[in-house]
């Protein structure tokens, strides 16, 4: 294991625990897109740290290039977490912003995405952006696993530097798939509900 990722995940575990709860599926080595609610900069590492080590190295977090693309952040994102950077600002209007994600999925590896596109401040996620739908349509065999991150919205509010240590559980729900003929709106709503339902799931 790389030292930088070891230290980084260790630090995040010390601060927020990141205890995995496999509620609707197990930690199986199949190709997946984990999609989660997004409330803090620790979300990515929390999910990553909650995965068993053998799955971590086949699972790439997706991070915004405008924030994670420079300096120390870039080093942490691309070296420690092996993140895939996505161009949120669409600096090149002709390029498909999902291209790096598609490439990763084509190589057989898994992704962690935050379909809200940005960090929210509440326990309930904002409406999802359409990227998840396009990936689901293009890769029907990849399992779509909803993930709910509990408590992290209290730990590192937007603008704060030091996280408040809180025990965060990472709940993995039952995989969904795009139904035949399902519209984009209906699918995104269903995916978001799957994440919200995990918020109320009893602590196992």
């Amino acid at each position, binding site marked *: 294991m790389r030292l930088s990722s070891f230290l980084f995940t260790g630090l995040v575990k010390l601060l927020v625990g990141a*205890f995995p709860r496999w509620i609707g599926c197990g930690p199986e080595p199949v190709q997946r897109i984990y999609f989660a609610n997004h409330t803090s900069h620790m979300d990515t590492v929390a999910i990553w740290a909650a995965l068993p080590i053998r799955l971590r190295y086949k699972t790439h977090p997706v991070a915004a290039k405008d924030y994670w693309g420079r300096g120390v952040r870039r080093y942490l994102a691309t070296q420690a977490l092996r993140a895939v950077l996505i161009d949120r600002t669409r600096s090149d209007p002709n390029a498909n912003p999902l291209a790096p994600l598609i490439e990763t999925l084509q190589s057989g590896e898994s992704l962690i995405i935050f379909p809200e596109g940005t960090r929210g401040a509440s326990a309930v996620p904002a409406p999802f952006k359409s990227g998840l739908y396009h990936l689901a349509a293009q890769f029907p065999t990849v399992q779509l696993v909803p993930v709910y991150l509990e408590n992290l919205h209290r730990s590192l509010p937007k603008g704060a530097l*030091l996280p*408040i*240590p809180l*025990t965060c559980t990472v709940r993995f729900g039952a995989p969904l798939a795009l139904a035949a003929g399902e519209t984009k709106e209906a699918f995104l709503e269903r995916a978001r509900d799957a994440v919200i339902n995990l918020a109320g799931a009893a602590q196992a």
Partner: protein
Amino acid sequence: MTAQQKLIWLFGGILVVLVLASLIGALLSKRAGSERSRATLDNLRARVNAWWVMIVVLAVAFALGKTATLVLFGLVSFFALREFITLTPTRASDYVPLVLAFFVLLPAQYILIGYEQYGTFAIFIPVYGFLLLPAAAAFAGDTQEFLERSSKIQWATMICIYCISYGPALLLLKIPGYEDSNPLLLLYLLLIVQLSDVLQYVFGKLFGRTKLAPRVSPSKTVEGLIGGGLSTTLIGGALAWMTPFTPVQALAISFVIVTLGVLGGLTLSAVKRGLGAKDWGVMIDGHGGMLDRMDSVSFAAPVFFHIVRFFFT
């Protein structure tokens, strides 16, 4: 026998007990019939396994010395505080007092103990923390449930940092004729408190009929309390050789430790259930959270410290 030899004997004795507990657990599991007894035994096995880890961690910290023991208890406080704050509804405007509690008060308390500043560490959190935490919250300008929010953070820091830190504070007491033996005193405290919890659990499972306080702590029974409490007090008296106390004194002191431990367990269980939880956390398999293991210690440690400091130094 030197203090070090006594420590080795004691940890050896604890290991023998753990081996026996693991064997008994394995034997019972083989005979378990019903669904319910199987669940109980699975929990028992998880508890015993967690004890193995806790004892090994404690033994390593003791072997490494005072600084390592302080760091270990600093981490225990940290995890306990993390659990307390996780279950306590705080608001975004509590950010500054929470950061102060975790990253200033907690390390400062253990550093003061490390430098043997009794006069300062004894009043640092109860006076300065008490006053400054709400003051820091006032700057955020959020008056909603201000008193409730402040007292939650004050409670968290008092129990998880201040009270627990009295355990390793035993290391700085100067007891005539007992020099270099203070780690034994800390081990004595932990042993009595935890043994009391364990024996109350065992007596409760074997003979428990009458619930003690069903709404606060559903598994506690009067039979468990009396059987476990009395047998622990007797063991405490028999362990007088590891303390600066006479057997009669040890009997009385271990009775006080057991009593305070019960009060701590009940009080923090009431706090926990008031916050809508069954366990404080999940980090110790079979036991729940760090605070489920430290609730009794947090009440017993300060009183034990004061008794020893007042009568024996």
